């Protein structure tokens, strides 16, 4: 218990800020290439056990990050690191700023007038809050899956191909391959392979959500943001998505917001607890759920408030 007391602060302290070292940068550059078709056997996850103390590279680092909607401050001085190729769960009561934080990572808050931020948020060495940051490229590198499945009213094929075609031209065969690969990664290929030409709106909610995940994957992101991806789904579909997330972890860094404690415990490697716009505690999932450092965290995960 006492060892983990300082974890929330200590997470940042014992690791260099990625990007500040050229080495960290070059390693990350490798992952910029569109996702490899198969789970890479070479880049083996060094820690099948999340509790293991091996350090992970950090993909996203925030320092003193605050954000506002007009006069309302939604986030207060966040210091958080998100490790590479791990699942980070953001938990916290409603309105505590989880989605806000998530939307800053791919700058979706740009679409909200009056939203602005202060402080640092660094993705692979690049400050993504700056106005110089290429938002279009950032969003390509940081995919997002929304709470409600939102497929386009197009065919399943077109849905997947959409994102890829935004950024470059593809041959038909390449595109077909990409679509199949993405759908396979999202574990939905077998269900839809015979109806690629049909409208995506004809799929069930769970299938639609997996389609949205496949759609996000098809752009070749490094990071996948998921904002309560299972909240509109039945337990079976949720289980399918969870399984999927576990598989995706090998290739992608995943940040997931969830209100389901069991889910967070099941799928995430690290967990961050938000409360009223502040980061209360952040650490390895097992530690957070078994020996939380803060009483608020304990109360929240044991269901005493929130």
């Amino acid at each position, binding site marked *: 218990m006492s060892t983990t007391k300082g974890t929330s602060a200590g997470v940042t302290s014992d690791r260099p800020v990625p990007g500040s070292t050229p080495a960290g940068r070059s390693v990350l550059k490798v992952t910029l290439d569109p996702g490899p078709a198969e789970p890479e056997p070479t880049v083996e996850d060094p820690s099948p056990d999340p509790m293991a103390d091996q350090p992970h590279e950090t993909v996203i680092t925030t320092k003193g990050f605050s954000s506002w909607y007009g006069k309302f401050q939604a986030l207060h001085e966040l210091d958080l690191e998100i490790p590479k190729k791990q699942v980070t769960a953001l938990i916290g009561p409603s309105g505590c700023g989880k989605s806000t934080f998530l939307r800053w990572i*791919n700058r*979706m808050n740009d*679409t909200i*007038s009056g939203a602005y931020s202060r402080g640092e948020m660094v993705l692979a060495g690049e400050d993504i809050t700056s106005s110089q940051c290429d938002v*279009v*490229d*950032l*969003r*390509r590198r940081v*995919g*997002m899956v*929304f709470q*409600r499945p*939102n*497929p*386009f*009213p*197009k065919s399943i094929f077109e849905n997947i191909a*959409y*994102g890829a075609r*935004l*950024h470059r031209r593809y041959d038909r065969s390449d595109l077909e391959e990409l679509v199949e690969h993405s759908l396979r990664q999202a574990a939905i290929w077998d269900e839809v392979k015979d109806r690629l030409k*049909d*409208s995506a*709106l004809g799929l069930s909610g769970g299938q639609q959500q997996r389609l*949205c995940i496949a*759609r*996000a994957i098809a*752009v070749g992101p490094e990071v996948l943001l998921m904002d309560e991806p299972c909240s509109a789904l039945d337990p079976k579909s949720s289980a399918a998505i969870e399984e999927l997330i576990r598989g995706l972890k090998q290739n992608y860094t995943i940040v997931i917001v969830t209100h389901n404690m069991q889910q967070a415990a099941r799928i995430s490697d690290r967990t961050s607890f938000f409360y009223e716009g502040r980061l209360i505690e952040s650490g390895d999932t097992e530690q957070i759920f078994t020996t939380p450092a803060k009483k608020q965290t304990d109360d929240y995960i044991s269901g005493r408030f929130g």
Partner: protein
Amino acid sequence: MSAIGSRDSLLQLTRSGRSRSARLREFVNRAFFTSCLLITSIAIIALTVLLTTVAVQGWDGLSLEFLTNFSSRNPEAAGIKAALWGSVWVCGVCGLVALPIGVGTAIYLEEFAGKNRLTSFVRTNISNLAGVPSIVYGIIGLTIFARMFGLPGIGTETEPGLTVGSTWYDSYYTADGGVAFRPLESRGAPAGAIVDGTPLLLVDEVDTSVVQPRQLPALVVADGDRGFSVALEEAAIPITIGTAEEARDRGATLAGFVRMTESGNPRVWDRTTAYLTDATLSGAVLDQATSVEGRWLSCEDLAGETLFVRVPDDRYRIESGDRAHRLRTVLPRITRTQLEATSTPERIEVMLGEGGRLVQGELWNEYRVQGRRPTRYALVEAKAAPAADPPPVGGWLPVYPRLRNEFLETGSRTVRASVVADDAPIDGLPPGAILASDAGAPLPDQRLERRSWYYFQFPFGKGVFAGGLTLMLVILPVVIIASVEALRAVPNSLRQASLAMGATRWQTVQKVTLPASIPMIMTGSILAMSRAIGEAAPILVLGVALFITRTPQNLMDQFTILPMQIYNWAQRPGESFQELAAAGIIVLLVVLLTFNAAAILIRQRLQSRLES
């Protein structure tokens, strides 16, 4: 247990309350239903009565001729073609301009513009503009498009400052008294001196209201050496159509009706307006070209060929081909009384130079009423004449194979003319030479302006383009509002999904928002277009000509539209004009219905494509 008990007692209470308030409630409900039904049926009955009246009144007037004829002072011959095509042109311009601008504005307002004070001000104002009376837009259209504020250098409607695609012709007298036209460098070039040149024969004084929009029969006008058009000689009339071989094959044909005009030049009339006339060719004037007196009219034989018939006052003789001809003269403008008066059998003389052999025949007149117009048929029995008869003096005349029907401006009016086609030049005549026109006044001394289909001028004047733009003003707010609503109806989650994948705003609009909202945009726009078709007030303010007897030839051309034509007829006295108006209303309704049906079809197509 106790909760269930209290619920039961509550239900009891509701049941007991039913006796009064519930009965009243039911009554109110019923009364409202009945009154709604009543109001609706009144509306439906009124509409039915109206439509039935229109249908009954207009049914007789509806015919193919009604659609293919131009407006006329004579209700029997009047048609709606000019207005129909005018509407098509104007609404085409209106739609082609309004849709991109409207949808573009909507996209900007909804997808790009931030929600600040200025944009909300613009939004409110667009909604307000939709309520502005259309007559106001007429005034705006007149000032902006027709006159362009009268800015210096822009010119006026009649004297445009800049024109593209127009050629000016200057008339001059040929050595033998004919009138010819030749192209000018510019409108302002000095008038040409009288020179000998390509001879031209002009058709004159035709009431344009009855001129049919068809190719004038080729007017054969030249007697090579002397450079004049018609060789009018006692012995023979060397006027025909076709090459010599052709003419021999199908029987020689002659076109036109020659009579004297004030200027002393013989003019050839178009067949459709030919009728017996008292005018004679006086020997004195014709000395230059001919020396015969007589009356002339054109006829059609049974094969539909036009013959040129001379009716001398003293002799009744038919000279024709070597087979019998039944000749028919179409008298479009003859009235029933005139018909009675002139129905005495008459013998006329037909002179054909067929193979150089003249034939004679006897003639009976026969009158028949066909369609809307009384038609006079002249039955001609022709007998073969002795083969030894002398050939016509002039011999075979050249054929003008390609004559284009064109409308020429004479400053104040538009005249119709046959023009030599560019790709089929005629010996001695440059392409584009004007062969014949039907100006309402003697054409010499006038300058003609020939406008190509791409003719364009500044300011736009009162043409199709200005009309379309004015209507565009009327429907633009409606299109914008409809499009904004359509874009707003697209769920925001789709935009977010697209943006989150790194799409730019334009990519999102182009690939997600617009396709999803197109069906609704189409519906709104087509409803707006229906309004444009039925709109008369702004066009009335624009002050376009009311009496138009041709379809628009270019974007700057004059036009009339269906509602204006209907209004024009409706305000005239007389049963027959009311009938025309009713028939016009039916046509307008059919056009509107077609339009709406198309809208529904397109919408369904797109919708099913999006959803499947």
